[in-house]
C-alpha cells in the first residue's frame, strides 16, 4: 500500500543551459506562438485532477497512526473535492527524505536531538493527477519517539510544470513557514524541557527524602528489595536529569550550527532571544547540579530566581508570599513515575501545541498568503510576475497609473526572514508571544522594569501578566496526562479531513491499525513495564523511558547514506540559489529607471522561475549574460501559454484572466465609500456601483470592473476622447447628474484615466452634493456632483460656473460635455467608440498598455535635460522652448493638445520626484491650469 511515490526530478534539463540567445531577439515571452502545439487540448492534461484548486496540505507522520493530513489551506472541503488526502499524505510522508538521525549516536551516552535540515522534493501522483512540492520538516517533542515529530507541508497542484517552475519560490516561501514553525517549536520545546526538569528534580528530591527516611529507619532495611528499587529509581531520575540537561544544551547549541540550507533564514532577534532563554535555563540547572538536595535549590532559587520559588512548591510560606506578590497560579511539579505510559495511551501534541500559538498562527497566515499568491495558472502567474518586474523597474512613474506594488511581496530571490512576532517593526511588547515562563525572564523583556529581583513580577503590566498567565496555563495542561479516549476522539476529527468518508475511513482505520501493529506492542500490554520490549524499535527513545536502548548502530546506516544524498542535493541547490541571487544583483533597481535604455523590457524576468538556467554555461560569462539570458529560460512557459494548463479557472472564461487574485487580498474597501461625512451626503441606494472612495484601496479587481464601465463609456459617448483628454491633461472633470448610481458608475469608470489617483483614490470624489471650492478642485481631479434643483443646488451651480475655467463638465443626464476642444490623435486609440474590444478586462489591459506607454514617454520627457534647460549659457529660454516643442511634435508626434497630456504627466513626475526632499514641510500642492475656451460637445 505504501508505494514509493514517483519522485519527479527537479534538477535541470539539459537543453536549458545550452542555448546562447541572440541578444537582439524579441524576448520569448512577448512572442506569440504561430500555431498551437499538436497534442493540445489544453485542459485534457488536468481534467482528471480530483481537486478544483491548488491547495496546501500539512501532514504529519504520526507515530501512532502513521501519515495523516492535518490541515489544508484554504480550509474548505470543496477545494479538495474527491481528492483523497489521506492517501496523498501517506504517499508524501512515506519516504523519510530528511533521514532523521535520532537516538544514541555510537559514541555518546545520551540521546541526541537530530538536527536535520528541511528537505524539498517534488512528488507526483500521475494517477491522481496531483503534483506536489513537498517540504519535510521535523519538530521536537519531548514525548515523541526520538524527540522528533516529522511533518510535511505540501503545495498540491494539478500542473506539474507550475510546481517545477515555481520551485524556487515555493521553496522560499515554505522555508519561511518552516523556520517560523521551528522557531516556535524550539520555544515550546524549551518550555517543555523546563517543566520536565522541574518534575524530575521534584521527583528526585522526594525520592531522596524517602531514601533518607529509610536510612534513618535503620540499616536492617537498607538492602531490602524496596530500598534497592528506590535506589534504582533515584539513579534513573538522576540519569534522566542529566539527559534532559544535555538535551537543553543541544537545543541551545542549535543556533550555532552553520546551516546548510540556503533558504533557512531565521529572524535573528527571535533566535538570540530563544538562545538566551535556553542558556538561562542551562545556567539555572547547571547551578543546581551536583547534590540534588532540595533545600539548596530552594535557597538558590529564592536568591536569584524569584519565580522559581513558588515553582518549588515546598516552602509554604514562601509560596504564599510569592502568590501574594504575583497573584498568579504557578506550576506545581509532579511526581514522575518510574514507568510511564506507552506511546499509545497518550495524546500526541497537536501542531498548535508543538509550536507556540503565535508562531502557529503566523505560519498559517504565511501559508495562506503563499496559497493566494500562487493562485491561477502558470501563464497568469508568469504574466503577473512579468508585470511586477516591469513595474518594479519603473518606480519613478508607477504612481501615475499603476496600482500600488505591495511591498510585502519582496524582491524575489532575496531571503528575508519571516518573523512571527514581527521583529522587523520592533513592536516588541505588544506582539510578544506567550513567553516561556522562566524566573528572571521578564527582566529582559521590558527594559523599563526595575531590576530588582521581585520587581519584574510585581510591576509587570497587565498585558504581560496575562501573557504570562497564558504561558502558565500552557504549562499546566500537560498533554501527557491524557489517555486513549482523547486520542480516539482526535482520530475522529482527523477522519473528517477526507470528504469521502465512507470510502476512506475504512482504509484509514486499516492503515492506522497496520501501522500500530508494525510499530508497537499491542495496546493491552502498554501499562505493564517491559523494559526490554522496545529494543526492536530502534529509534524510540521517548522521554518516558528512562532507560535507553542499545543497538542502534545498525539502524543508523541507512539514514546516513540518505543524509548524504540529501546534502548533495542541497549543495547543488545552493549553487542554483547563488546563481539566482547573483542574477538578481545584476539587475539593480536603479538601471530600471532608465527606461530609455535599450532592453529595459528584456530585463524583465522572473528569476525564481528559472532556477536551473545557468548550469553549464560559462561562469565567467555569466555576469554579462544573465540579464539577456533569463527570458530565454522562460521558454518552457511558452508551451504553457498555448497548452494553457488552466487548472483552477473555468475554461470557458477564455481570455478572461482570473481576477480574484489581488481583489481578494485587499478587499477591504469599505462599503461606506465616498461618504466623506461632511462633504457628501449620499442619498442613492446603489453605492456598491462605485468602488471609489475614501479609506479603501482600489484593487485590481475593481479596476478591471471599471474597465468594463470605461469601455461602455467609450462606446456610448462620441466625445469620450475629449473627456479622457481632460482627465489625462489634468483638468478636473465634474460628472454632473441626478442619479447617484449612474454618476458613481461613470466616475468609477473614468477613474481609470486619472493620473496619480492616489493609493485609495484620493484624487477622486465619487459623489458630492454640496458646492465645491477651489481647494476641492485642487484635491480632486474627478468629481461626481449631484444635480439638485434647490437653493443648495443653485449655489453649487454657482460654484460650477464660477470655477468653470478650471473644470470640464460632463453632464450625465443631458449627455453633454463642456471642455476645451481636443483635436489630437493620441487618445483615438483608447477612446474609439467603434472599438472591437468587447470585454472590459481586455479593454483594461489595452488601456494599461497605452497609459504605460504614455508614462514612459513622460518619463523620457521629464528626465531629458536639454528639453528643459539650456545646454549652453548663451542659449535663451526660447531656444529651449523650441527644442521642447520640436521634441514633442516631431519626435513624439504629438500635437498641441496631446502635448498637454505629456506636460501634465511630466509635471506630476517632477513633483513626485522632488517631493521626498520637502515632504516634511507643509507646503500646499500646486494646481496648474490654463486659460482656454471651452466648447460644448453633444451626442
Amino acid at each position, binding site marked *: 500500500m505504501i508505494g514509493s511515490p514517483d519522485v519527479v526530478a527537479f534538477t535541470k534539463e539539459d537543453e536549458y543551459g545550452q542555448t546562447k540567445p541572440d541578444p537582439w531577439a524579441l524576448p520569448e515571452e512577448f512572442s506569440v506562438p504561430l500555431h498551437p502545439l499538436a497534442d493540445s487540448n489544453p485542459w485534457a492534461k488536468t481534467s482528471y485532477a480530483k481537486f478544483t484548486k491548488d491547495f496546501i496540505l500539512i501532514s504529519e507522520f504520526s507515530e501512532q497512526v502513521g501519515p495523516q493530513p492535518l490541515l489544508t489551506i484554504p480550509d474548505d472541503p470543496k477545494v479538495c473535492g474527491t481528492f483523497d488526502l489521506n492517501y496523498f499524505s501517506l504517499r508524501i510522508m512515506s519516504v523519510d527524505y530528511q533521514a532523521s538521525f535520532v537516538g544514541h549516536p555510537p559514541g555518546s551516552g545520551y540521546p541526541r536531538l537530530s538536527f536535520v535540515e528541511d528537505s524539498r522534493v517534488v512528488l507526483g501522483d500521475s494517477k491522481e493527477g496531483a503534483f506536489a512540492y513537498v517540504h519535510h520538516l521535523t519538530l521536537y517533542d519531548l514525548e515523541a519517539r526520538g524527540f522528533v515529530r516529522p511533518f510535511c507541508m505540501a503545495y498540491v497542484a494539478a500542473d506539474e510544470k507550475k510546481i517545477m517552475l515555481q520551485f524556487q519560490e515555493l521553496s522560499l516561501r515554505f522555508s519561511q513557514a518552516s523556520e517560523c514553525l521551528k522557531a516556535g517549536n524550539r520555544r515550546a520545546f524549551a518550555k517543555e524541557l523546563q517543566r520536565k526538569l522541574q518534575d524530575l528534580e521534584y521527583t528526585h528530591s522526594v525520592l531522596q527524602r524517602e531514601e533518607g527516611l529509610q536510612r534513618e529507619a535503620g540499616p536492617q532495611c537498607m538492602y531490602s528489595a524496596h530500598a534497592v528499587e528506590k535506589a534504582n529509581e533515584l539513579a534513573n531520575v538522576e540519569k534522566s536529569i542529566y539527559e534532559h540537561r544535555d538535551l537543553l544544551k543541544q537545543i541551545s547549541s542549535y543556533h550555532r550550527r552553520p546551516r546548510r540550507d540556503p533558504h533557512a533564514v531565521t529572524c535573528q532577534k527571535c533566535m538570540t532571544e530563544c538562545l538566551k532563554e535556553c542558556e538561562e535555563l542551562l545556567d539555572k540547572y547547571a547551578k543546581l547540579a551536583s547534590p540534588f538536595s532540595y533545600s539548596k535549590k530552594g535557597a538558590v532559587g529564592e536568591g536569584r530566581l524569584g519565580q522559581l520559588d513558588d515553582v518549588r512548591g515546598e516552602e509554604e510560606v514562601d509560596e504564599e508570599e510569592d502568590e501574594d506578590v504575583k497573584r498568579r497560579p504557578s506550576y506545581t511539579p509532579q511526581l514522575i513515575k518510574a514507568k510511564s505510559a506507552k506511546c499509545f495511551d497518550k495524546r500526541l501534541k497537536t501542531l498548535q501545541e508543538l509550536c507556540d500559538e503565535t508562531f502557529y498562527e503566523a505560519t498559517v497566515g504565511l501559508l495562506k498568503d503563499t496559497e493566494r499568491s500562487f493562485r491561477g495558472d502558470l501563464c497568469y502567474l508568469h504574466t503577473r510576475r512579468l508585470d511586477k518586474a516591469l513595474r518594479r523597474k519603473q518606480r519613478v512613474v508607477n504612481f501615475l497609473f499603476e496600482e500600488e506594488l505591495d511591498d510585502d511581496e519582496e524582491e524575489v530571490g532575496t531571503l528575508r526572514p519571516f518573523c512571527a512576532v514581527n521583529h522587523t517593526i520592533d513592536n516588541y511588547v505588544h506582539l510578544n508571544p506567550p513567553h516561556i515562563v522562566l524566573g528572571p525572564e521578564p527582566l529582559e523583556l521590558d527594559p523599563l522594569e526595575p531590576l530588582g529581583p521581585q520587581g519584574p513580577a510585581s510591576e509587570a503590566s497587565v498585558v504581560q501578566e496575562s501573557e504570562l498567565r497564558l504561558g502558565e496555563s500552557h504549562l499546566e495542561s500537560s498533554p501527557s496526562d491524557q489517555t486513549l479516549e482523547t486520542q480516539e476522539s482526535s482520530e475522529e476529527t482527523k477522519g473528517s479531513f477526507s470528504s469521502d468518508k465512507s470510502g476512506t475511513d475504512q482504509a484509514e482505520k486499516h492503515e492506522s491499525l497496520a501501522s500500530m501493529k508494525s510499530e508497537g506492542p499491542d495496546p493491552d500490554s502498554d501499562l505493564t513495564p517491559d523494559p526490554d520490549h522496545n529494543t526492536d524499535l530502534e529509534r524510540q527513545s521517548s522521554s518516558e523511558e528512562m532507560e535507553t536502548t542499545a543497538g542502534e548502530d545498525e539502524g543508523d546506516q541507512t539514514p546516513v547514506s540518505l543524509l548524504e544524498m540529501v546534502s548533495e542535493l542541497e549543495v547543488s541547490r545552493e549553487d542554483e540559489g547563488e546563481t539566482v541571487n547573483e542574477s538578481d544583483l545584476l539587475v539593480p533597481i536603479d538601471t530600471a529607471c532608465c527606461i530609455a535604455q535599450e532592453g529595459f523590457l528584456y530585463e524583465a524576468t522572473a528569476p525564481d522561475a528559472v532556477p536551473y538556467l545557468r548550469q553549464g554555461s560559462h561562469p565567467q560569462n555569466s555576469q554579462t549574460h544573465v540579464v539577456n539570458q533569463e527570458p530565454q529560460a522562460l521558454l518552457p512557459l511558452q508551451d504553457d501559454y498555448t497548452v494553457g494548463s488552466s487548472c483552477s479557472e473555468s475554461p470557458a472564461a477564455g481570455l478572461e484572466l482570473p481576477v480574484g487574485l489581488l481583489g481578494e487580498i485587499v478587499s477591504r474597501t469599505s462599503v461606506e465609500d465616498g461618504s466623506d461625512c461632511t462633504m457628501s451626503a449620499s442619498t442613492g441606494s446603489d453605492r456598491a456601483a462605485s468602488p471609489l472612495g475614501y479609506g479603501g484601496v482600489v484593487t485590481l479587481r475593481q479596476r478591471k470592473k471599471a474597465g468594463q464601465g470605461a469601455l461602455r463609456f467609450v462606446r456610448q459617448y462620441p466625445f469620450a476622447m475629449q473627456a479622457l483628454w481632460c482627465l489625462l491633461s489634468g483638468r478636473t472633470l465634474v460628472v454632473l447628474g441626478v442619479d447617484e448610481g449612474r454618476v458613481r458608475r461613470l466616475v468609477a469608470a473614468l477613474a481609470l484615466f486619472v493620473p496619480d489617483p492616489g493609493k485609495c483614490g484620493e484624487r477622486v470624489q465619487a459623489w458630492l452634493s454640496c458646492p465645491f*471650492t477651489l481647494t476641492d478642485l*485642487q484635491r480632486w481631479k474627478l468629481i461626481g456632483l449631484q444635480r439638485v434643483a434647490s437653493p443648495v443646488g*443653485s449655489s453649487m451651480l454657482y460654484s460650477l*460656473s464660477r470655477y468653470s475655467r478650471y473644470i470640464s463638465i460632463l453632464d450625465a443626464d443631458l449627455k453633454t460635455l463642456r471642455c476645451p476642444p481636443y483635436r489630437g490623435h493620441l487618445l483615438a486609440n483608447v477612446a474609439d467608440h467603434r472599438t472591437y474590444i468587447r470585454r472590459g478586462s481586455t479593454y483594461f489591459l489595452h488601456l494599461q498598455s497605452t497609459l504605460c506607454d504614455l508614462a514612459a514617454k513622460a518619463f523620457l520627457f521629464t528626465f531629458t535635460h536639454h528639453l528643459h*534647460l539650456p545646454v549652453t549659457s548663451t542659449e535663451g529660454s526660447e531656444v529651449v522652448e523650441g527644442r521642447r516643442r520640436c521634441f514633442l511634435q516631431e519626435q513624439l508626434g504629438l500635437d498641441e493638445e496631446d502635448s498637454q497630456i505629456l506636460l501634465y504627466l511630466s509635471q506630476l513626475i517632477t513633483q513626485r*520626484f522632488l517631493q521626498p526632499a*520637502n515632504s516634511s514641510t507643509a507646503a500646499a500642492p500646486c*494646481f496648474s*491650469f490654463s486659460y482656454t475656451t471651452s466648447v460644448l460637445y453633444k451626442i
Partner: protein
Amino acid sequence: MLRWILGGREAQGSVEKSPVLCIGEEQPKNCFTELQVLKGHFDIVRFLVQIDDFRCASAGDDGLVLVWNIETGERLQELRGHSQQITAITTFTCSNEVTSHTSLITASSDRSLSLWDPDTGNRVQTISDLQSSVKCLLVLERLGVCVSGGEELCVWNKDFQLQCHRQNHSDTGITALIELPKNCIAAAMDKEIVIFRLTVSTDSSVSVAEIRCLSDHHDQIRALINVNDRLFASGSDAGELILWDSIDWNNLSYEHILWEESQSSSQTEIRLGAPKPSEMSIQHLTTNGKLILAAVGSGLYVYDVATKTVVAYRKAAHDSNVLHTLLLSDCELMSCSEDGSVRMWEIQDLPLPAEPASAGFFGMWTFSRSNKQSAPQSKKVMEIPAMRTLELTGDLIGHSGAVQMFISFRENGLVTCSTDHLLILWKNGERQSHLRSLALFHKLEENGGL
C-alpha cells in the same frame, strides 16, 4: 443663465444686460497659470505685508499673523498673541551699517501693540492697555520712531517706549497716516487732514505739535497717499480726489469723480449677497508717482498727476466694490474686489472698435447665441480725445469671498487674501515648471542618478 445647468428651459430672456466686462476663459496675457492655496487663518484675512523678497505676512480677524515663504508656499511662522482682530500691520526695518533687520508691528482690537521678529516668531515687545485700539500705523524710519493712530496719536521709539501722546477731539479718530517732508505727518480724521510736526529734542525725546488742519473734503476721507516728494493725495466717500502740496499743504487740484447716472444695475440672477456698491466712494488710492489709480465704488479711475486729467477709467470694473488696487507699471494695473476676483488691466492707447473681447461667460453655453448681440458694450468712447481705455487682460478667480488685499512679488507671483480665510499664491506656471526642472536636475545630479 444657470437655469440651463439646472436642466430647466433656456433662459435667454431673463438675462439682463450686464455692464460688467467678462473676459471669458481665453486669457493669453494672463501668466498666472498655477496657484497654491495657503490655509492657516480661521477668519477673514485683511492684511498682507511684504517682509522681503520671498516672505510675506498675513493678518486678519482671527488675531493671527502668519509668515509665508511665497517661493514654496510654506508657512514659516505663526505669530500668536493677539486675542482679537488685527487692525493694522506694518514692517519696521532697522538697518545699521551692515545688516538690516525687518520686524513686524501689529495692532489689534484688543488694544495692544506688538513687535515681532518674523525670523524666529518671537514677540519682542508688546504694549497692552492702550486707551483705544490703533487703526493705523506709520513708521518713520529716518527718525526711528513709529506713530500709531486711533483716537489718540502716539509716538513710540525703537524700543517701544512711548515718546509722546496726543488726544484727539474727533470721534472717528485717525484713519490714515502718511509721512510728509520736514518731519511732518498727515493724519486723516473724518473730513479733515491734520498736519503734525514731530520735533526731536536733544535728549532724543520726541514731541508732536499740530500745525495745520485741512478741511476741503466734504465727506469722510477714506484714502490718503503720498504721490511723490511734492504731492500727496486724499480721497473721500463723496468721490472727491484732492491733490495737496506736501510742503505748504495747499490744495493743488480738486477732482470730483462723479459717474454719469448709473445704468440698470448689473444684477445677475444669482448674486452672492453683494450689496449695491456705494457708487462714488473712493475706496483705495495707489500711485506710481505719475499716475494715481483710484478705486471708486466698483470702478477704476486713472488720473494723471502731471496733466491733472483723467487718463482712463472704467466705471464697472468689478461686480462690486473694489477693495485694493495696484499700479504695476505705467500701463498695467490690478484690482481686487468684493466680488472675489482679481482683475488685470491694461491702459491701451487706441480705443479699439467696440468688439467684445470674447463671448465671455455665456460663450460656454450653447444658447449664448442670442446673448452675443447683447453682450456688454460697456466701453464708452470718451469725449476727450486723449482718453485711453482700460482693457481687461485677465482675471484671477479662486476666492469664494471678497478679495481683501493682494501684494505682488513681481515674477515670483502674487498673493491674495480674502474673506474666505484663504490666501492664494498665484504664480507663473511656466516659470515654476522651469524652476522645478532646475530642481529636478539638481537633485538628479546630487543623487548621482535616479
